[in-house]
């Protein structure tokens, strides 16, 4: 149940996967919050004060206290609003979830940027690397975490579901840009199934930007 007594504000940017992750997490927990749209080219004084170290979105402010860095924000949301839990109870499984969330941050997100920003052969190579990382995640999740779904976290979505589910539209977008499938159902069936289950959730559906919209935006700005 959401604790309505806490003032919660999310500073984010549209078309920003990390903002989407935090948005989704708050909605899944039923938290009432205010959203502040930041202009990525013209950051507000407020944002720079709240995140002086990295100067970027997303930043979550809870009762006047700012938290920055997406994975840290997600874990904080889970620490404050316990229901439904984003992490398993068992310390070993929690370690695995944290490992894969860190893998997404270290490997998957950077390669996605590389694919979008590059061309020709460099882009193809990056796309292959991306596909490879997804297969690595698939194997890890199957071996260490999967208990039948529909989500990595079981019946209800957890940290990895939020992170990957929020990225699903971006993955589709990248596939359209490069012209190849990166998340192939026959290679990454679990990933495909839990990401598809996630984007269909009532709580987050409206936050999922269709890949066509992302593509149109890119046509107006080839580095987007």
């Amino acid at each position, binding site marked *: 149940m959401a604790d309505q007594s806490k003032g919660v504000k999310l500073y984010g940017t549209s078309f920003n996967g990390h903002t989407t992750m935090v948005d989704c997490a708050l909605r899944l927990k039923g938290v009432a919050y205010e959203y502040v749209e930041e202009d990525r080219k013209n950051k507000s004084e407020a944002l720079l004060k709240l995140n002086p*170290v990295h100067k970027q979105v997303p930043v979550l402010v809870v009762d006047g206290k700012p*938290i*920055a*860095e997406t994975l840290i924000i997600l874990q904080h949301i889970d620490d404050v609003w316990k229901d439904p839990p984003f992490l398993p109870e068992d310390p070993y499984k*929690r*370690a695995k979830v*944290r490992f894969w969330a860190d893998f997404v941050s270290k490997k998957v997100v950077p390669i996605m940027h590389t694919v979008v920003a590059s061309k020709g052969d460099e882009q193809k190579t990056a796309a292959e690397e991306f596909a490879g990382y997804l297969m690595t995640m698939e194997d890890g999740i199957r071996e260490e975490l999967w208990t039948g779904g529909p989500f990595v976290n079981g019946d209800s979505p957890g940290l990895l579901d939020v992170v990957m589910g929020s990225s699903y539209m971006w993955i589709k977008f990248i596939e359209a840009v490069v012209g190849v499938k990166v998340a192939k159902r026959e290679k990454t069936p679990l990933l495909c199934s839990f990401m598809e289950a996630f984007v269909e959730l009532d709580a987050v559906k409206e936050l999922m930007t269709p890949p066509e919209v992302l593509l149109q935006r890119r046509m107006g700005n080839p580095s987007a």
Partner: protein
Amino acid sequence: MDQPPSSVKLLGSWADSHTHRVQLALKLKGLEFEYQEEDFINPSPALLLHNPVYKKVPALLHGGRSIVESVVILQYIDETWTDNPIMPADPFERAVIRFWCHFTDDKLAPAVGLVFSSSGEGQKAAVDQVHENLKLLERELKDGAFKGRRFFGGDKIGLLDIVLGCGSYWLAVFEEVMEVKLIDPESFPVFHAWLRDFEEQQEVKETIPAIDRLLEYARGIRQMMLSLSNGSSINNAAATSG
């Protein structure tokens, strides 16, 4: 809480700060463990088996299962053996701790590594970057959520002390080997005092190798790097392993 019967084994490397983090945490929790030294150039079959994704130390083996990535391992240790917690209970404090752990590994450590692996203008830029990062830490120590405390963990060292402390000794080592000023006590008085207090702790003294060994090690790696190429090699294994 009694230590569960399953044995604990750590695969690590003696000069690797991420290994030291885990050793220190296990010591603070009063846990017995077996240690296996790994050559980071030549990982053993066990290491490849237990860390197939990154193939690096440290890897913690407990009850036949493996946990890797030092900050993940530290949280696992804290959640499995709950006496003497190294993470605070308050959610906001936990978030601040995690933030600076991430900052340490994502910003500070790579900048320090770059000082070690570069030369000339590149090195000067890297040194400036280290100073910028230390300034942010200094400000946090002085004015942030933990101001006035001896350690980030309060009276006793906690997770952030472990993460930041195990690795900060390279600052003094690189200062000497590279002949650069990294951690001037006048510019960073609070950080300097914190680090000195950290390194005085008994468990820390038992974990971190003697400075002479670290100096010799660093000199050896630097020699090898310089002789390998014209300084463009980024084999900064000493500073960024694990």
